[in-house]
Structures are given as structure tokens and as C-alpha cells.
């Protein structure tokens, strides 16, 4: 048995863990990071990056196929379009390798030592890691739990065979003829839309009355319209009861009616849960918040010297939140910084069209008791959207009427994910409508719609 000791020990090398480790290393703390799989975590290996790669490939294929069918308004003509999905996946894996290799390099550059293996907490200052060469015991002054999350299973649809989690769905080597997506959240919709564009017959089953249930229907409406246009069947208020693998049939109950739906593969995306089992967490008896670890604004748990970041600490489970937390705990360990004081965590759904939200939705803003204004500007009136053949969607600003303070920004539209930065910046800077309206936005870009929406909110719209 080998013994190691360090100041900071990070368990999990996802975006939360690796950022914490890099920053701790840069701050001169002796740091070790333990990862059982590959550097980069869910995000780089089986989450954000692979899904966006697949979405891009699907979109390219779809555009060419549309052209081949003589549907191109642009006058592009082509014939005999096919996709070699195995090659697509190999290309995706190349990107993942490049990025995970990059993370390993950054860790090394920051002086962080990497240990490959599965970590188990012995006590608040000691962790045992099962490595290929036996168990390594590591003692530390500060422990950072960043073990991320894993998909939630539906009891009647256990993963395996034709029942896929997002991980398997991102590595299929052939496009299934029929694909049922159970769960209409962003992960299911992203992957489902990609497969629809790749030629699969996709059906989506959502238990709630509408897809993307955490957003309002106005926002999700353009996405629903596009899914219909792509031939995706969207079933809401639908409970999946079981799967017959011999017949490749999915049994679904809607109200009192039970129907069967053909599904060569079933993708289950009903949510994610913190990966805390078999971690030895019972040794610490940390205060929890539901299924998640409770932390204060500096990422500290109920036990001194034990921090937690990323998906294990709750919603929203997003890579950029994990990264921001990673930086905060590293600073906290050296007594720098003031803890979490962010005003906004933007969230993007890479559906078609894309959806981006930051800050408060209109109803959430009204719930604060403020006098709320909402300004909506359609992409239809935007030159750039028209040249991209995608006039569907809109930009919306939620603001405090008396002061003009921007409380929230949302957009739905092809390519709108790139507005996330502007939205977050506006909220972080406490921008008012005047600030946004007075900022020159380049023409022709989708971003002009943000300026126009602000002008509308001020009652001074130019192009509406």
C-alpha cells in the first residue's frame, strides 16, 4: 500500500474537479486529483461535447439530404446522400480525445498530480484509491468532492440491450430505424432531434403536459413546431409502462389509454442524480439537501475542510456552474475571494431551434412582486435570421418596469446559443434596458434582436 499526502485532494476530474485542481495548483497548493475514468468527466467524455458533435454532424447531414431531395431554397443540388455513423462517432471521439488530453496537460502544467482509480472516502482527511497497482491511501488537508452525476433509471426500463442512456446513444454506430425517447428534457430532445435528422423515426414521450417543462410554453413552442416539421412525434402526459424487446414495442399509457409504439431503441433521459454511492460518504455524515450535498457560498460542506462542487451539489447541473464553483473553492482554500455571488447561470438547450435562458422567466419575475415588463422581438424581423433560412423564434427581455433593470433574458432560435454570453454579461453587470439599447450591436447578427428588444421595452423600437 502506498501512502500519499497533499493539501488538496479532488475526487473526480469533470469540469468542476479539474478546474478546482488547476486553480488550486496555480495558487501553489499541493494538489492531487483522482479520476476513475478519463479526465474531463461527463462533460467532455459522454455529455456536452459528444452531444454537440453529434448534433452538428446530424445538422450537416440533414442539410445535404434536404438539398438532395430538391428542397433547397438556396438552389443547392446533390444526390445520393448517406452517412457512415461509425465514422461520425470516430470523428467525435477524436474531438473528445483532443479535449481530454488538453485537460490532462493543463493539470500537469499547474503542478497537479493525477491518480487514476476509484476513490473511497475513509474520513474527512483520508481517501483510499483503488488503482491498477493496488490501493493508494491519500491524506489531505482539504477534500473536494466532485464526482458528478449519472442518469436516473426508470424501473420498468432498466438500462441495457436496446434501452439506452445518453452515454450509449452518443456512441451508436448505426442509425436506428425507430427511436423512442423517454423524457422530454433538454438531453432527450437534443439527442432525439439529432437522430431525427439522421433519418430515424423518433417519438418523444413526456409525462408532463409539455416538453422542456421547466420553461414556459411560449419558449418551447418554436421547438415543438420544428420537431413536428422534422417528423418527430411528441407525446405529452404520456407514461411509459414497459418495453417488449422481442417485438421492439414500447407500451405507453396516456390517461386511461394504453398504446404500443415501435422502437428499435429506447433512449431514457428522465434526469440525472448525484453520483454519491459507494463513495464512503456515510463516513462523513454531511448535511444533505435532498439528494445533494449541502454547501455554503464558498462550496464548504457541513464538515470543515470538506468541499463539494458540480452536479453533486444540486441544480442546475451544468458544466459551467461546476467550473465556476471549482474556482471558488480553490480560492476559498487560500482565503481569497468572497464566495458565490453570481447573478446568473445561463442555460442552453441545443435543440432545433436552440433555446437559451438567463435570469428570471416572466412568471418568476412577477412572483418577486415587482412591476414586470416583458419585451419580445421576433427573429422574423432580423436580417441575419432570414439569411440563415431560420426566421422562427424570438428574443425576450424581462425587466423591472420602474427602473428598467434587466431581470432575465431568453431566446429561442437557430444559433441563439451564442447569445448566452451577452445575456449573462448583461445580468452580471446589472444592465438596464438603456444599457443594452445604447450598445452598438453588429449588423447583421442575431444579437441585434437583443438591442431591438431593449428598445421595444423602452418604447422606442426602430424595426418593429
Amino acid at each position: 500500500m502506498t501512502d500519499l499526502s497533499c493539501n488538496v485532494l479532488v475526487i473526480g476530474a469533470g469540469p468542476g474537479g479539474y478546474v478546482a485542481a488547476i486553480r488550486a495548483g496555480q495558487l501553489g497548493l499541493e494538489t492531487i486529483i483522482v479520476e476513475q475514468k478519463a479526465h474531463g468527466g461527463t462533460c467532455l467524455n459522454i455529455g456536452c461535447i459528444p452531444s454537440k458533435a453529434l448534433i452538428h454532424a446530424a445538422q450537416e447531414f440533414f442539410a445535404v439530404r434536404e438539398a438532395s431531395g430538391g428542397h433547397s431554397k438556396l438552389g443547392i443540388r446533390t444526390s445520393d446522400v448517406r452517412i457512415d455513423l461509425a465514422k461520425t462517432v470516430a470523428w467525435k471521439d477524436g474531438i473528445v480525445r483532443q479535449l481530454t488530453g488538453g485537460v490532462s496537460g493543463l493539470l500537469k502544467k499547474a503542478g497537479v498530480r493525477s491518480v487514476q482509480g476509484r476513490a473511497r472516502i475513509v474520513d474527512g482527511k483520508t481517501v483510499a484509491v483503488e488503482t491498477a497497482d493496488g490501493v493508494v491511501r491519500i491524506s489531505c488537508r482539504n477534500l473536494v468532492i466532485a464526482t458528478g452525476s449519472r442518469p436516473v433509471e426508470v424501473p420498468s426500463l432498466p438500462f441495457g440491450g436496446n434501452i439506452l442512456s445518453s452515454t450509449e446513444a452518443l456512441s451508436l454506430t448505426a442509425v436506428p430505424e425507430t427511436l423512442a425517447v423517454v423524457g422530454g428534457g433538454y438531453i432527450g430532445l437534443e439527442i432525439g432531434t439529432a437522430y431525427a435528422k439522421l433519418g430515424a423515426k423518433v417519438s418523444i414521450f413526456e409525462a408532463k403536459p409539455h416538453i422542456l417543462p421547466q420553461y414556459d410554453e411560449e419558449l418551447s413552442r418554436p421547438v415543438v413546431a420544428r420537431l413536428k416539421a422534422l417528423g418527430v412525434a411528441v407525446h405529452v402526459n404520456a407514461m411509459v409502462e414497459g418495453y417488449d424487446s422481442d417485438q421492439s414495442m414500447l407500451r405507453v399509457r396516456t390517461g386511461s389509454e394504453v398504446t404500443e409504439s415501435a422502437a428499435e431503441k429506447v433512449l431514457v433521459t428522465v434526469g440525472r442524480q448525484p453520483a454519491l454511492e459507494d463513495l464512503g460518504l456515510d463516513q462523513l455524515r454531511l448535511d444533505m439537501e435532498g439528494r445533494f450535498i449541502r454547501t455554503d457560498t464558498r462550496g464548504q460542506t457541513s464538515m470543515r475542510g470538506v468541499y463539494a462542487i458540480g452536479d453533486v451539489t444540486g441544480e442546475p447541473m451544468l458544466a459551467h456552474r461546476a467550473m465556476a464553483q471549482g474556482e471558488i473553492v480553490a480560492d476559498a482554500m487560500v482565503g481569497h475571494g468572497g464566495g458565490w455571488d453570481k447573478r446568473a447561470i445561463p442555460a442552453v438547450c441545443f435543440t432545433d431551434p436552440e433555446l437559451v435562458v438567463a435570469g428570471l422567466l416572466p412568471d418568476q419575475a412577477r412572483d418577486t412582486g415587482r412591476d414586470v415588463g416583458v419585451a419580445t422581438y421576433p427573429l422574423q424581423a432580423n436580417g441575419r435570421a432570414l439569411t440563415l433560412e431560420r426566421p422562427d423564434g424570438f428574443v425576450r427581455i424581462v425587466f423591472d418596469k420602474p427602473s428598467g433593470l434587466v431581470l432575465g433574458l431568453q431566446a429561442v432560435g437557430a444559433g441563439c446559443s451564442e447569445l448566452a454570453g451577452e445575456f449573462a454579461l448583461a445580468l452580471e453587470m446589472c444592465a438596464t434596458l438603456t444599457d443594452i439599447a445604447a450598445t452598438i450591436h453588429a449588423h447583421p447578427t442575431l444579437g441585434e434582436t437583443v438591442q431591438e428588444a431593449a428598445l421595444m421595452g423602452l418604447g422606442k423600437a426602430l424595426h418593429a
Partner: protein
Amino acid sequence: MAIRTIRLPDVGEGVTEAEVAEILVKPGDLVREDDPIAAVMTDKATVEITSAYSGKVVWIGGEVGKTLAIGSDLIRIEDDTAAGAEEEPKAVPVAEPATVAQSVTPVEPAKQTTPSPISAVDSGTRTAVSSPQPMPPNAAIPPRAEGAPVLASPAVRQRARDGGIDLRQVSGSGPAGRITHADLDSLFQQAGQGGGAATSSLQPQPETVETVKVAGLRRMIARRMSEANASIPHITVVEEVDVTEIEALRVKLNETRGDRPKLTLLPLIAAALVKAKQSNPKIFARYDDEADEVQYSSAVHIGIATMTDGGLMVPVLRHAEALDLFGMATEIGRLSEACRKNKAKREELSGSTITITSLGPLGAIATTPIINKPEVAILGINRMAVRPSWNGTAFVPRTMMNISASFDHRVIDGWDAAVFVQKMKVLLETPAMIFMKD
């Protein structure tokens, strides 16, 4: 010439901020490396900060009574080294063991650090639509409503944090009440100058209100007391004790003490506590409520609540179990002297497992002592008085004294509290039992 910044170093104990107890330099002063420049106060003691550079003081970032975040800029020094040297903030290592700086008290009333809400000319609602009125910086900022969100850009938030400013107390002159860099500028300026308020001569008898900032040790005490009182459910047991015997013993011992220090009742009570620990170990503990752990030490470290000019301090009589009566008296004398002179070291002010508090002759008939967190019990000594006592056949004069003991009811049950108090009563009434080997 280069401007060097000295930042508030991490003073240990895991604190994120510390209160400025003393500034030992003023702008224009020449300092040498390692010269003391300021003292800050943590939970336990005052820590001296020394200069990491030699040169002329050009800027001071704190004032007495102000709480600064660890890492904030404390003092800037213009040093005479090669021109063009880059400004490089430096957190100086804290001298260990830290000693209490001289003259922490009396604490001067601190100057006001937040802008006072001078006549709010712009009291109407401003909307972002209306053309912005040019505002004299900071002159007419309406006070920020209690609980209203703090609006400030990340850069402003960072600067405030570094400067130890709580933005919740700051009103913003920007659009929608946003706090701007200019607001901070004038705040820092004000803090540097202090504000002289003009008094009106029109009012014949203006009411004068003296506002004294609760600062320094007093603020520390205030914070710790309310924290202890709020987080610990106290149960207080008061019992009457006949101290005639132990008083007689004390007088006798003093008669034959030679050149040893004069005994007060305190060492005798401490000795009784040492004895009581054998049968009541649960009472002598420290409760780490962050970790949900109770720590029982084999040693008896007794906190002795001591009045000083600046307020209450609690030096610790360590390893009371290893001292005899005169040894304890000597150590108690030394500790209270150190406290009175502000010379107590940090480790002399921490680590107790139970505390004795006494108001001496002022001590009333009963008190409700507040537990010295993280301990779980405190023993209050009340006033001694000769009272008639019924011995079965007649009233006889006896020297009586009440003890008031408070316990942390989260971990000490009423039963255990009562058993402990009874044990103390028996020991104090029959002092021979204190010195008996079981």
C-alpha cells in the same frame, strides 16, 4: 519608486475577515521592513501585522473598528527601490506566536464608513427611460432599501470585497440603484477623511446623540455572546452552597502561606471542579457543532472570565488537574495580569473545557451565565453573604453563596446538570472531599 501593497494576511483560525484593532502608521510615515504597521483582531486575540517593505506610507486601507476581508489591501508603501518595479501585493506572514498589541483599548469610536443619507433630493422614482440627470457623485444617493438586491458589476463587487466593504450597506448612484466605481471612490475617500457634520445654530436646544461604534473587543464579545446565546439552548441551575468551611480553610491557608500568593476562593473552586470531573466527565467538553462532535479532553482547562478595561476576556488555566492550590493561584494571577495588560497570547485565550465566571462582591444572588462557546457548561459564582441558617434547633450564622451553572441542553440533560451541581455543592461544603483520594 514603486508602490507596494501590503494585504491583510491570513491570520489563521480559518477566519475570512478580521477587525482592525489598531493602525500604527499614518500617511507620510517612514517604515522599515518588519516594522509593526497595524494590529487586527480575530476571535481570540489581536495579531500584529508587520511591513514587508521599507518605504513611505502613502495609503491606508482600514481604520480602527472596520472589518476587512483576508486579502484586502491594508497599506500601500512607496519604496525607494528601482523605478518601474511592478506593484506586487504581498500578504505578509503573521508573526507566531501572535501577541496582543499594546493599547488595543480603549477603542476609539470609528468613523462612519457608509455614506450618510443626506437629503435625498431625488426621491421620486427614476426610470431608465427618462434622460439621466447628472448627479453630483454621492451627494444625493437615496439610501438603499433594507433587503433590496445589491446591484453592482463583478469588478465593483471584487473591489468592495478587497476593501472590506459590505455592499449591502452601500447605496448606488447608478441606473436602477447600481453601485458604481464612483460610489466606491467617494466611500474610500470618506473613510480616509472622516465627515464633520455641520450643526445647525437655528435650533435652540438641539438634541445631541452620541453614536459610538461597537468595535474592537466589545464587538467581539457582543458577537460571541449573541452567537452563543442564539445557538445554544441554555439550562441554568441555581443552588445554595454553605461556604463557611471552605472560607475557614482559605483563611487558614493564607495565614501560613509564607511568600506564596494569597489565595482567593477561585483556586479552591477550580480544585473542586477538577475533583468533580472524575464523576461528571460529560460536563467538561467542547461541542463542535459543525462536525456534530463532542470532544472530551482528559485534561481540565478552566477558562477564567476576567474583566479588563476593554471588556471581558477569558484566559485559560491549563492543566488545572496538575496544579496545587498555590500553583493555580500563581497561574491565575499571571493570566489576569497578562489580560489586563493586553499581553495574553492567542493560545492562552483558547482551549478551555469549562469556564468559571464571577462578579465578586457584585455577584447578586443569582445570575444566568452564558456558555463560553464551544464549551458545554459554565459555572457562575455569586455573592457571598452571612445568612441565618436553621440547623434543626436554632438559627446559626453561616456564610452562604449561590452558584449558577448553565449547560448546553443539546448535550447535557437536566439530570446530569443537577448531579453535577449537587457534586459541586457537596465538595464546596465539605472541602476535605476535594483533596481526598477516592
